[in-house]
């Protein structure tokens, strides 16, 4: 063997052994990676199972709460009714002893009902199933409403309620859930009245330190001992163990108050009047709320899309009712009392549509719409006339108005027609109505599809079917439908995910929606599922014909070529 061959062999041998070592290492690493991958997959599937179990548990709990609430109230209805009739004497006089026993039974049934309501309320709030409905609130308005609500209880206890705003004259607004904050106020007032001596007064002091509002409810009752000032906010944490029975409370009022205030990102606590130098005995409960919520505190559910509707009417009651309907359905609302103010707002703020009254002092609706349409900044905003006049009225100025406005709702109106008309204007359908059914169950899809084919469908209306979220997104991207019928459970994502996606699409976020689910949808879930006009149906509760009727009604409103008129 020549030297050359030997060298070659050595080189080859070295190369071979290096390759072998590398291969072994690679194999080893490969085995390790495979093992890691297997472990990761096992873990992921465990996570998945845990998540699924968690979801099932949450669903079970939801269903349990809803069932308990209904099942407990049903027998209580009979008991309360029977006792109430007997103790009132309308069925015949009962002797004093019996009457007293009946009164006791009756009062305690009432207490049981309140207890059930409070427990369910607290449970819903703490599990995040009752998201806050945040809007701009006036503190003074909420205080005066609460005082009015509690006035008869105060009167019976011979206690006066006083609201003391501070500083005088300024009005404090804040972002909060008005129903919930009012619940806190009435709870605090009810406590204060219960523990106040006859002839004394309960004072509600309000103020602000800039970024927070501060509200104090001050009584001159027996006072809370220093060691109980914190525990009174616990569930059933009354000062005396028999307070709940004697005072008719549930022992949950302050726990509910704290839960609501905490949800708003605020704090609530109690102080003894002596300790704070108030010069009279008793207790003051103090609530401190941030006036503007940090975005992560607003609520567990995503906020409905920004969609400001301008309501223009000189009648404050109409503005309030319309505003309430709209806010309840996820719209942002701006209210103005005159045409001048409306022009001012529409020029400066993003407005998606204007609901316009015709008969207003100063600038009338006729003049307002003319000016809106002449101004390039506002000409594109759709206007819906909200008037006692009918669009088919014989007056000479009506046809021009019908042609100028995009929609018309006649007063008195009902909520669903107002919403349908607004939905139609915000989402103008062109051409024939197209419905998209998103349902993964083939059998069910066939039933719904065929029920539409049999139905008296308006001319040109068509229905399409998507069996998955991906398919639905594709259809929506290519050619947005006019209405979506959505099943909540889909193979590749939930209906929630699809709604989230739709909300991010400018053309689709006001799409009318019918949610068709196999189970009851909770309130918090409903707020996550709203797009444009949204209706909820439960498969077990409705027949296909109901879905069909509802969908046809919605489609008709979408495609009514002449404005819809509505009367209550």
């Amino acid at each position: 063997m020549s030297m050359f061959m030997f060298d070659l062999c050595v080189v080859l041998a070295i190369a071979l052994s290096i390759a072998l070592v590398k291969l072994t290492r690679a194999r080893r690493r490969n085995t390790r990676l495979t093992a890691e991958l297997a472990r990761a997959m096992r873990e992921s599937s465990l996570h998945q199972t845990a998540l699924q179990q968690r979801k099932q548990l949450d669903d079970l709990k939801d269903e349990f709460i809803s069932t308990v609430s209904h099942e407990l109230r049903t027998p209580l209805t009979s008991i309360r009714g029977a006792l109430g009739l007997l103790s009132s004497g309308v069925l015949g006089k009962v002797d004093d002893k019996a009457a007293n026993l009946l009164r006791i039974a009756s009062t305690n049934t009432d207490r049981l009902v309140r207890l059930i309501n409070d427990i369910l309320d607290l449970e819903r709030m703490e599990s995040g199933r009752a998201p806050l409905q945040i809007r701009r609130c006036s503190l003074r308005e909420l205080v005066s409403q609460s005082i009015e609500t509690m006035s008869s209880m105060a009167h019976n206890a011979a206690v006066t309620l006083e609201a003391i705003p501070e500083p005088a004259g300024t009005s404090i607004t804040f972002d909060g859930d008005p129903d919930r904050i009012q619940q806190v106020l009435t709870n605090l007032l009810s406590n204060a009245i219960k523990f106040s001596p006859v002839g004394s007064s309960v004072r509600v002091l309000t103020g602000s330190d800039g970024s927070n509002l501060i509200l104090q409810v001050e009584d001159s009752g027996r006072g809370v001992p220093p060691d109980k000032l914190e525990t009174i906010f616990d569930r059933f944490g009354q000062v005396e163990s028999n307070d709940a029975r004697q005072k008719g409370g549930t022992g949950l009022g302050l726990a509910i108050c704290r839960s609501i205030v905490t949800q708003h990102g605020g704090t609530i606590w109690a102080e003894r009047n002596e300790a704070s130098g108030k010069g009279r005995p008793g207790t003051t409960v103090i609530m401190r709320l941030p006036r503007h919520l940090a975005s992560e505190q607003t609520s567990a559910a995503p906020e409905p899309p920004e969609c400001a509707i301008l309501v223009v009417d000189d009648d404050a009651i109409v503005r309030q009712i319309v505003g309430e309907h709209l806010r309840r359905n996820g719209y942002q609302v701006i209210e103005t009392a005159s045409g001048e103010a409306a022009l001012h707002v529409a020029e400066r703020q993003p407005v998606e549509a204007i609901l316009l009254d015709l008969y207003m002092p100063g600038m009338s609706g006729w003049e307002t719409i003319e000016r809106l349409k002449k101004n390039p900044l506002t000409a594109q905003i759709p206007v819906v006339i909200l008037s006692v006049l009918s669009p088919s009225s014989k007056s000479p100025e009506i046809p021009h108005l019908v042609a100028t406005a995009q929609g018309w709702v006649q007063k008195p109106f009902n909520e669903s027609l107002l919403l349908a008309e607004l939905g139609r204007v915000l989402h103008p359908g062109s051409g024939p109505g197209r419905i998209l059914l998103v349902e993964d169950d083939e059998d069910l899809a066939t039933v719904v599809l065929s029920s539409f084919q049999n139905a008296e469908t308006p001319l040109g209306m068509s229905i399409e079917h998507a069996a998955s979220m991906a398919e639905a997104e594709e259809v929506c991207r290519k050619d947005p439908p006019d209405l979506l019928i959505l099943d909540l459970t889909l193979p590749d994502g939930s209906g929630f995910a699809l709604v989230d996606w739709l909300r991010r699409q400018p053309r689709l976020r006001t799409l009318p929606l019918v949610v068709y689910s196999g189970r009851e949808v909770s309130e918090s879930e409903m707020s996550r599922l709203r797009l444009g006009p949204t209706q909820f149906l439960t498969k077990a509760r409705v027949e296909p014909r109901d879905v069909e009727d509802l969908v046809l009604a919605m489609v008709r409103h979408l495609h009514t070529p002449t404005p819809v008129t509505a009367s209550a």
Partner: protein
Amino acid sequence: MRRILIIDDEDDIREVAALSLESVAGWQVLTAASGADGIRTAQAERPDAILMDVMMPAMDGPTTFREMQRSPDIAHIPVLLLTAKVQGVDQRRFAGLGVAGVLFKPFDPLTLAEQMANALGWRDDG
């Protein structure tokens, strides 16, 4: 005299509610234990108003109401729903059906008639 039809699957609740309306308000009361039975009774008797439970087996309150709306001879009779559900969203959903009002369980037997009259806009005692 006002004639009211009560539709509820719970015998006890029917009885208490009927007794309450009869003895407190002096109204005449008819009862039915199911949605289907309620529709038949309403067609035969034409009551002035209907007080109907929401949660009933077979045909629930809202379904019965929609069924009544399809029947021209009784579609005009005002319907009040009686529910044990207190969540705001349920109330709004029921109100959205077009019923004359929604009342809650447990009801106060002494003011049930008054609550109904208020919801129905009945001023006089009929």
